[in-house]
């Protein structure tokens, strides 16, 4: 499903490796986690991209520093009639015909470092604040997905019978729903009425709306594999043993089963985050994602595409940032998978 769907197609992809990890002679007695960490540590490319992602997160957190000390403006502050001094001349931030200035670097002391948008807002500042929102959605939505998918997968796989039937059919329906169509339908409809969760009402223009939607529609990707794994694990001896000792269902699910699925979950997390960020952008492009005043990379691209001829920086800058983020997650995610899935290493060792 276009840009937003790499996860569906990635499921069986257990091999592709950017950096092959040489088959480690596995010392007996080392825990699999330790092994995985060791393998990951040796994968320099994956580590580098992981670091890049951390840097992106840090720069997003540091947005106010740039905004207050360098650019001296906020993400939603318009400067339609302002001028800046460039080489001693006064230049309009936005021309009379609505065309904004392009990237200035440090020519104006870091103001309009990446240019201005059609409303005269500082693109660099919006980019950093947009990073906060895009990353917030990406990470929070993934957490929601993981929580819901793991719960559903555990319940379905553990209790089987009608519980499994209900959950699995529900997932079938969700699976049949073209993700983008469902996302847009929910996005448009919820933004109008807000979302009443019983204990609280989410405003229509809240960031939580796209976050919850993305978290919700991504459940299928993870819930099915989890369920499958639980189905096979619950027949294993250690579960039988726990049951024989009189452990409660809750205890078996969360103390015995869950830890055994951590590697599956961990493999999925970077891909889920990357996918959520892409889905946010797609929804925003179609007008069903993040609402003003919040900037996000998706809304910035969507606004920028209208001015692609005169101000390409408005499209290229946020898009490039998004690609970099998703790329770093994908490469790092690859590394994590290779580290946790020894099969991949053996396979490459010829």
């Amino acid at each position, binding site marked *: 499903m276009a840009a937003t769907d790499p996860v569906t197609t990635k499921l069986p992809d257990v091999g592709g490796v950017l950096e092959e990890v040489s088959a480690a002679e596995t010392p007996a007695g080392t825990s699999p986690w330790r092994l995985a960490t060791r393998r990951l540590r040796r994968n320099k490319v994956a580590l580098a991209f992981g670091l890049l992602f951390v840097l992106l997160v840090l720069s997003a957190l540091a947005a106010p520093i740039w905004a207050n000390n360098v650019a001296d403006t906020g993400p*939603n*502050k*318009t400067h*339609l*009639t302002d001028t800046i001094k460039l080489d001693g001349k006064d230049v309009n931030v*936005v*021309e*009379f*015909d*609505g*065309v904004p200035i392009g990237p200035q670097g440090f020519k104006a002391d870091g103001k309009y470092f990446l240019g201005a948008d*059609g*409303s*005269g807002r500082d693109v660099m500042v919006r980019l950093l604040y947009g990073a906060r929102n895009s990353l917030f959605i990406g990470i929070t939505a993934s957490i929601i997905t993981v929580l819901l998918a793991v719960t559903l997968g555990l319940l379905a796989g553990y209790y089987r019978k009608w519980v499994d039937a209900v959950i699995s059919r529900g997932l079938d329906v969700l699976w049949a729903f073209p993700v983008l169509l469902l996302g847009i339908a929910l996005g*448009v409809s919820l*933004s*109008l009425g807000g979302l009443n969760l019983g204990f609280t009402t989410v405003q*229509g*223009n809240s960031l939580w709306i796209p976050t919850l939607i993305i978290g919700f529609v991504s459940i299928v990707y993870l819930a099915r594999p989890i369920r499958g794994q639980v189905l096979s694990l619950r027949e294993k001896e250690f579960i039988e043993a726990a049951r024989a000792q009189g452990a409660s269902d809750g205890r078996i699910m969360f103390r015995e089963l869950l830890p055994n699925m951590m590697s599956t979950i961990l493999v999925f997390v970077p891909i889920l985050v990357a996918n959520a960020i892409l889905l946010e952008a797609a929804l925003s492009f179609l*007008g069903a994602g993040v*609402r*003003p*005043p919040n900037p996000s990379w998706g809304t910035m691209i969507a606004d920028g595409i*209208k*001015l*692609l*001829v*005169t101000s390409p920086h408005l499209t290229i800058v946020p898009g490039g940032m998004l690609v970099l983020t998703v790329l770093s997650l994908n490469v790092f995610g690859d590394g994590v998978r290779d580290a946790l899935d020894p099969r991949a290493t053996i396979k490459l060792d010829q």
Partner: protein
Amino acid sequence: MRSTLRTLLGLMAVLVLALGAAACGGDDDDEKGGDTGGTPAAQSSGGIAKVNLTSFPDYMDPALAYTLEGWNSLWTVYTPLVSYKHEEGAAGAELIPGLAEALPEISNGGKTYTLKLRDGLKYSDGKPVKASDFEHTIKRVLNLESGGSAFYLGIEGAEEYVKKGRAKGDISGIETDDATGEITINLKEPDGSFQYVLGMDFAGIVPSDTPFENMTKNPPPGVGPFMIENMKQNRSFQLRKNPNFPQIEGIPEAKLDGVDVTIVKNQQRQTQDVIQNKVDWILDPPPPDQLRTVKSQYADRFEEYVTNSTYYFFMNERVKPFDDENVRKAVNFAIDKRALARLFGGLLEPGCNFLPPGMQGYEKIEDCPYGDPNAAPNVEEARRLIKEAGVDGTKVSVYGNDEDPSKPVAEYLADALNDIGFKAEPKIVEASVYFTTIGNQKTKAQIGFANWFQDFPHPRNFMFLVDGDSIQNTNNQNFGNVDDPEVNKLLDEANANANLDEAAPQYAEADRLLVEKAHIAPYGHRKLANFVSENVDFENCTLTHPVYELDLTQLCLTSGAS
């Protein structure tokens, strides 16, 4: 499985080959474009012009169409009993007899309108026009719940007709005589603008056998310089010269043999095609992205003009803090019309009147009470007023819809309001439900974007937006709930007067009061533009009508255009 695989691999090979071929042959389209593009040269009159619209008209049925895209074509196909001169500016806003012999005779204290149909009129299919067709035309508007039905509910018996919900019913207030061609219309109340309502496209006469359904796929015949052919929903349609069009003074024949209208959603491509003379005219002005190039390189076939429209901010007087006149004044002081003009890509004529300049009754408010529209705003004064009113720090939701320029305008206003001491946030609503959202009293929308393009050139068509009598609980158009007794009184008198020359000063006075009392915050009038190909005789044949924009009947192609 094997055979499937082989097929796939085969397809793969074909595709790779095709890709190679495509890459090699990539650039011969330019030549081809040159061949097919451009209308045939050497035609002093006649010929077919190519026109692009960005979106298909909402309907291609006169009873239902309520967009500029629709009206621009439909007024050349369906002529109502009264119509407009095919002229620019104020002259074009003047009513003339259309299918009626003369303008209506108004009697009974402004409640009865009498007209007589011209003799020997024929539809484009050759069938004669009958007086009873008028009643059928109005019935279709009402029965189809057209967006225009509200205009005709003032006719006696119209509401009863709608309530019954039966197409074949009768509207008691309309009497027609097919033998004499006489048409009598009785209104419930005197309505000074009813002549204009008779001139709207909704009342463009169609035959009595036109079904009571949306006829977009197969538009009924009409009386007009053009007729519609080859309708392809959402794609294209053709206007062709109507062979049965009679001589009607003031409504000239079409200069062209026809116009081919195609829908091209991408405005960038439209502009590009006009530049390359593949398309002769586009309804929407070039997008901001290309305006600069067009203005500098193709100035000889581009012209901007101010439309009869007003862009303004409504301020809801039933909700805090805009119930306070001084707060509303502060908003007027705070908005920077130069900044707003930039959000329109320069296509905005800044001003502080509510009525647009092309409208009768417009009297420019000299020395706008809130400062020169073309100078910096008086933010200091605005801050002072806000402090004085004790509303600084108040939370305000600024409404706008998700289309340009509404969204950036709302974002700008929120920013400007923050500047003067509010805690404002834009609230962007889906465009399709925007006006019903802010027009619902339950929403309690405080302040936000609003605009109006005229339906007909009568000030009433603007003033109902701020008339206390027009406040409704849902689908309210008086978004600010403006209910000023002084204004209401002026409007009541003016609205009942069928003589617009007499009523105009009252409308002008109402306009001035609205602005001075800061009931609204108008900031300008939308400019549109004509951009045509080199094939079009730009000097003589681009007539911009005040109601319908470019007059397609007057468009013509030059001889010898390459």
